[in-house]
């Protein structure tokens, strides 16, 4: 996991170029849409990439963790705070958003740790197929638990952010879009700082690089992996909450396709590379929105998966990943 600020110039350069191209092709309004969608994908993609970086497992259930996150946020808002409509007082709104997001992230973090403990850790030394199949099983379990708790039909997500818009470059953009993008960027920066500057972050990086050597150096491998799962799931939980705020209705099978797209983003950015995952998220959102602009919405899934296959075939290390030899 390469996440320190050194060597970040190249990814930032690639990201900036990608953004400019996106803007020119899409125009302000659709660019805002793509940016918002991309922020959500990026939050999920980060979790895939972190987990893969450290235990080399495609956490198939990660998309469903995202889905559970949106249901948890919905439940907190409606049941604990009794929210149904827009909150107009700005101070209250910010406080509520912060509290709900924090609670969701913590809740989902523990769910992520729990899943790792029960379903993945016992299989750490098993053939690679085994944890992947377990992950599929966990995905089924999460979906069905949510479907039986909240019902299989779409569930309303309280729209606590008022639908107000501001004008920029001749386009009217909702404040919610701005909030989502800023929040995602802040979370990503915090993550970078955590991984790059803290003791635990260093433990994560060293574990990702060489688990046995890290263990010999005194890193508690189990704890490090558990924390990685915690952070990954917490980010997915934040993504789930903003997805709910943005779409306004959530469904138990929401996680499958979003998860798949986010995974594509992670692969595109170079799996194991957190900056890459973020950029990949924006690129995938761009592909999707651009397909829509061209009038090929029904082909957008095909486009995304074709991108996935092409990247894996021709540049398995992704846009930003280093060549990893046996890894791909």
């Amino acid at each position: 996991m390469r996440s320190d600020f050194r060597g970040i110039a190249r990814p930032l350069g690639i990201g900036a170029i990608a953004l400019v191209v996106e803007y020119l092709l899409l125009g302000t309004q659709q660019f805002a849409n793509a940016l918002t969608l991309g922020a959500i994908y990026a939050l999920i993609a980060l979790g895939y990439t972190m987990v893969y970086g450290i235990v080399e497992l495609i956490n198939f259930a990660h998309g469903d963790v995202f889905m559970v996150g949106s249901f948890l946020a919905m439940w907190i808002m409606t049941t604990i705070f009794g929210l149904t409509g827009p909150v107009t007082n700005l101070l209250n709104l910010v406080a509520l958003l912060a509290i709900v997001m924090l609670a969701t992230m913590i809740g989902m973090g523990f769910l992520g740790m729990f899943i790792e403990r029960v379903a993945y850790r016992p299989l750490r030394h098993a053939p690679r197929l085994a944890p992947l199949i377990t992950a599929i099983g966990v995905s089924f379990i999460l979906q069905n638990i949510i479907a039986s708790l909240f019902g299989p039909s779409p569930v309303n997500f309280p729209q606590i952010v008022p639908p107000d818009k501001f004008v920029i470059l001749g386009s009217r953009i909702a404040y919610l879009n701005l909030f989502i993008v800023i929040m995602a960027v802040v979370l990503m920066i915090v993550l970078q700082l955590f991984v790059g500057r803290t003791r635990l972050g260093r433990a994560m990086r060293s574990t990702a690089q060489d688990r046995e050597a890290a263990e010999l150096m005194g890193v508690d491998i189990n704890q490090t992996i558990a924390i990685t799962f915690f952070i990954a799931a917490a980010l997915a939980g934040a993504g789930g909450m903003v997805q709910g705020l943005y779409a306004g209705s959530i469904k138990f099978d929401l996680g499958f396709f979003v998860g798949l797209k986010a995974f594509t983003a992670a692969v595109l950015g170079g799996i194991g590379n957190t900056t890459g995952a973020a950029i990949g998220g924006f690129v995938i959102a761009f592909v999707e929105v651009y397909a829509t602009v061209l009038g090929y919405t029904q082909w957008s899934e095909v486009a995304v998966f074709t991108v996935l296959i092409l990247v894996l075939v021709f540049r398995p290390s992704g846009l930003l990943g280093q060549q990893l030899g046996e890894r791909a």
Partner: protein
Amino acid sequence: MTTISKSGAPSAWARFRSMSRNHRSITILVGWALIAGLLPQIVRIPPMSTFQPESLWIDGFADAGVFILLAMGLNVVVGLAGLLDLGYAAFFAIGSYVYAFGASPFTGVQIPFWPMLIVGAVIAATLGLLLGAPTLRLRGDYLAIVTLGFGEIVPAVFLNASDLTKGTNGIGGIYKPQLFGFNFTLENPVPYYVTMVAILAVTMVLLYRLQDSRLGRAWMAIREDELAAASSGINTITTKLLAFALGASTAGLAGVFATSKLTFVGPGQFGFQVSFTVLAMVVLGGMGNIWGVATGAFVIYTIQAVLLKELNQFFQALHVPILQSIDFVQYQYLLYGIALVGMMLLRPEGLFPSSRRREELHVNSEDVGDIPPPTEALGQ
């Protein structure tokens, strides 16, 4: 029931085992003939006969055969060669649509069913090769995702290319098979049943022969250690490609048969759920063991198609409010999920394992001695 006692003097059973090992193809054919004859008898006796009438059982067995075929095909890919294919339903879809194109009023063509079986298998295998050639270089979990993507793309293409496929409406009124002037009908499931048993018997003979061949040993070598296999002179790409193509062709075969029986095909029938159901069959049956996988598929299909519904009807009839409101069919995927997790944690080799696979899957289990057994944590 999973292991055979090897102790004691050579018993009649042991003699039978050694004979059956030496004449495996004949054993399989005789075995299938026995099964084909016995199954219709078994369902005539209670409690089977109380669930549904004989004709429905036979109809269900023909449908179960489709999944047995799929599971045996996926077993070549996952169980023998160790490649995780999460988009297997794509090849099933391809076989289905091939038959729909070859024998329906939509295209106006009516190619007989029997050659279409081969055509469907060949086209599916070709597409398998086309997908596999560039992607099989990827390591296992990347391959899983590529195949998952492929599994989503194929039905999406059938859905969106609506000029060619009638899109979401699907193709209906597909012709049923004929044999020497005898017409298969939807009222009489026996011809479908007999056909399916014949397909299964032949497929299984071929698969066992392949498994014991040089190619089969190469698959297992790759599964166990690709690097070592490559350094022993195995061309891993070609070998993996063959596994992929063979698995795809089996799914194509299953698709042709299933479509000729259903007489309808639509893009919604081939979602990822189908791929995962077949995967669950392979995993639960015992990856790598052909008979085990076939049995696993049969058991899961029967549970899903008959027993869960029977449970529903049974509890409905009890008129106990709480039990009445539970729809067991609805919890099928929860049960799959728990079964997949539980199986991987507790018995990764499946219910009917191949001895070789069991050793592989337990190889490192002593390394994780510091971790308590996961039984209580799973909380089933």
